[in-house]
Each structure stands twice: as structure tokens, then as C-alpha cells.
């Protein structure tokens, strides 16, 4: 196949917790709010379920940005899950920054089930950020690139 100048279409993975953010995404949909189709949502039982390895794996398999959404601190369905997730992700993002991955490629946002507007705004701004950062060339298995 000849090399051609393809337009950059980012791949963005969003981990959304079942109880708040996934319902928030649902509300965004039923309220006819738009967010870019580049965002692929993965539903997890709780933001605490997101293993640091999930995030690294997503980058490995070609994601350009990873965002994690969960219930607001204090509102976790399992009471405390997102507090643990918050510490974990802070350390992981700090480490990614330390090895030279732009900090803008990772984000955590708390979105409740009633915040369809916030969900759509968050995704729009995140995708915009990834467009400005461009393709993720530092991380990722080269064999996964087309």
C-alpha cells in the first residue's frame, strides 16, 4: 500500500464506572448532546476497577489518550472505591509524566449520572487536547500501528 498523508484520527479510550459516568454518557445520548466518535467507552464496575495496567495496555494497543471517569468523591456506589482510584491514578499519571509521556494524554474526571452535559463537554475538550498533541508515538507497540 502506498504511503499517503492520512488525516489523524485519534483513538481515545474512556473507562466509565457503571453507576455514574456510564449513566452520564447515557444521559448525554438521550439528551442529544454530542461527543466525538473517537471516544470508545469501556464500562467498568467502579473506577477502582481500573488497574494501572489497563491504562498502559490501552496505550500499548494504540490509544492516543486515556480518560477515566467515575462517581464524584463521596458518591461512590461502593462508598470508597474512587478514593483509592484517585491515589492510584495520581501516582500512575505522575510516573507517566516522569518517563516522558505528555501529561495531557491521561485524565481523570468525575461525572455523575445527572451530568450528561459535563460528560459531553469533558469528552469534547479531551479530544481537542489529543488533536493538539497529535499521534501518540512514544508509547505503543509499533506492530499495532497500521
Amino acid at each position: 500500500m502506498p504511503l499517503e498523508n492520512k488525516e489523524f484520527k485519534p483513538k481515545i479510550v474512556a473507562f466509565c464506572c457503571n453507576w455514574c459516568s456510564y449513566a452520564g454518557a447515557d444521559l448525554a445520548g438521550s439528551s442529544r448532546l454530542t461527543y466525538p466518535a473517537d471516544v470508545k467507552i469501556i464500562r467498568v464496575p467502579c473506577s477502582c476497577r481500573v488497574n494501572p495496567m489497563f491504562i498502559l495496555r490501552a496505550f500499548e494497543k494504540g490509544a492516543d489518550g486515556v480518560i477515566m471517569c467515575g462517581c464524584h468523591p463521596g458518591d461512590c456506589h461502593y462508598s470508597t472505591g474512587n478514593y483509592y482510584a484517585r491515589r492510584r491514578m495520581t501516582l500512575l499519571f505522575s510516573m507517566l509524566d516522569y518517563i516522558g509521556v505528555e501529561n495531557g494524554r491521561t485524565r481523570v474526571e468525575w461525572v455523575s449520572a445527572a451530568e450528561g452535559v459535563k460528560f459531553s463537554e469533558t469528552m469534547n475538550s479531551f479530544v481537542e487536547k489529543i488533536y493538539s498533541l497529535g499521534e501518540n508515538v512514544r508509547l505503543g507497540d509499533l506492530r499495532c500501528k497500521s
Partner: protein
Amino acid sequence: MQELINRAKELLADGTVARVLGWKAGDLPYNPEPAYFETEEDLKDFVYNGFCGANLSKYMIEASKLEGKTMVCLKPCDTYSFNQLIKEHRVDREKAYIVGVGCKGKLDIERIRKQGVKGIERIEGAEITDDAETLKIQTIYGEKTIPYADAMLERCHVCKGKDHMIFDEQIGESKETKDAERFVEVERIEAMSPEEKFAYFRSELSKCIRCNACRNACPACSCRKCVFDSNKFDSSQKANVDSFEEKMFHIIRAFHVAGRCTDCGECSRVCPQGIPLHLFNRKFIKDIDELYGEYQAGADTDSTAPLTDYTFEDAEPSIVGKRG
């Protein structure tokens, strides 16, 4: 050293312990290796000198399953690891007879070699009892001397102190060897641009041969089934991995011990490729200290580890971008 051997003989003779966990002389003057001694006869190979850097606390996980007590020789920094293992119920305190051995900084043969010392035949001044501040090294090219401090392991320059955190008895004097700040190197990297950081870690980590020595030597890495042994994980075999998996391995390795790492420096000491692996662990320690309050893993056996704890006011992950 003789005092230690005599005490070991006594303890073996009166049946207090069934075996002694220490170091035995290797075939070269600078490579003693961890070993079990079960009889007085075996103890003739026992050695304890400046090159006995291995942290023996991890061996107590297996020794705790054996019949009878084990006498284990722990240096001051090793006792932090032992405490951490007690906290995680990985070792049985009742099965260990801990002899806190003196330490005046452990030596790094690579640092000696880097100073142009080749063909080593004999090394004097590495005994713990020696007061001399220099090492006399007999080489095939003649005698060389280098200051003791210049031959020390990196971890000894940021020594945690000369006190044993846990012991049944102490033998020998210890000396605090701290002469540098712990986070200097981490701060140097943090100040780099993303491109420089990435280039730095790429060049360091590309040396990795995935021998798993860092994981196997680490006293905090004590899972019986390790995620990296899974055949679902490509980096379980070097032939399949690419440069990213190398990084992923090292990030995950450090992450799994975040908040539990006592900064004993074994990972960097055992790395056959000389990768400064402690820089990952120290970055986590530094972040934990800054964000969640100072914490030294292994200083006690009952505190809650930072990653299994939380407060309502914890920093949001977006702080990473704001700190710059």
C-alpha cells in the same frame, strides 16, 4: 565475623535454631552469595564482609515454611524489609531468630571496576571490623587503594540509618554512611523536558534483558504467582517484547511495590545491566511523601500503607499537570 560465627555455632549447638541464613564465600573475593548453614562443619564457609549486600529478608518467606527456627543475619536496612514482610503476613516472626549485624556501607564491585581496577586478586579493608577508610586491592597489575566511600553502593550513600528496626540480638557496630540526598537524581529527571525524559528512559531501559532479577531479588515482590509469569503477558519472553513492553514491565514492577518499597536498593544492585531501577521506586516514594505525607515502609509493622488508605481531601490526579 568470628563473633558472628561463634554465636551461630552456639545457637546451632543448643538447638535454638535449626539453620543459619547468611553468606558463604564465592570463588572470588567480591562475590559472597546467600546460603543456608545447617551444621558447625558448614559454617567454615561463612563469610560476612563489605560485599555481602544481599538482603536476606526475602529468603525468610521460604524459611518460614521450614521446620524449626532460622537464624537470619540482617543489616539495618534489611530489617525494614523484614518488618514490611511481617506486616504483609509473608514471614513468621516466630520462625526467625534475627541477628542484627553491623554494617558500615556495602561495596559495589562495578564501582570499583569503573575506577580502573582490573584483575582483582585480593581485597583488604572490606571486613566490617576494619576501621580503615580505604580499600587495599591487590591486582595482577600491582596494589591499588581507593577510598571506601568511593566504592559504596548507591543505596549506602543515602543510608536510612544504623539502627535495626527489629532484632533478637545485635552483633557488631554499624555506621551511618549517608552523604547524599535521596531524591537528587529523581529531581534532575523531573526537571527535564518530556523529550529528554523519554530519551533518557528509553536508553536506560533498552538495556533490559528481562532476566527478572529485579523482581526476584525484591523483598516487596513476594507474590507467589506473578503477573509477569502469565503467558498472556508478552513480556514473559524476551523474544516477543517490544520497547514499550520493557517500559510497561518496569512501571508495573515499581507500581506493584509503591507504598511498600523500603528503598533497599536491591533492584539496582542485582541488575546485571546496571539499570538504575531504584529511580522508579524513588519517584513513587517521593510522590507519596509529597502528596500523602512522609512514609517509610517497614519502619513499623502496623501502619496503613499509603495506597490502601485515603483521605477525603486527597489531591486530584490533575495535580500532576499543575506541578509541571
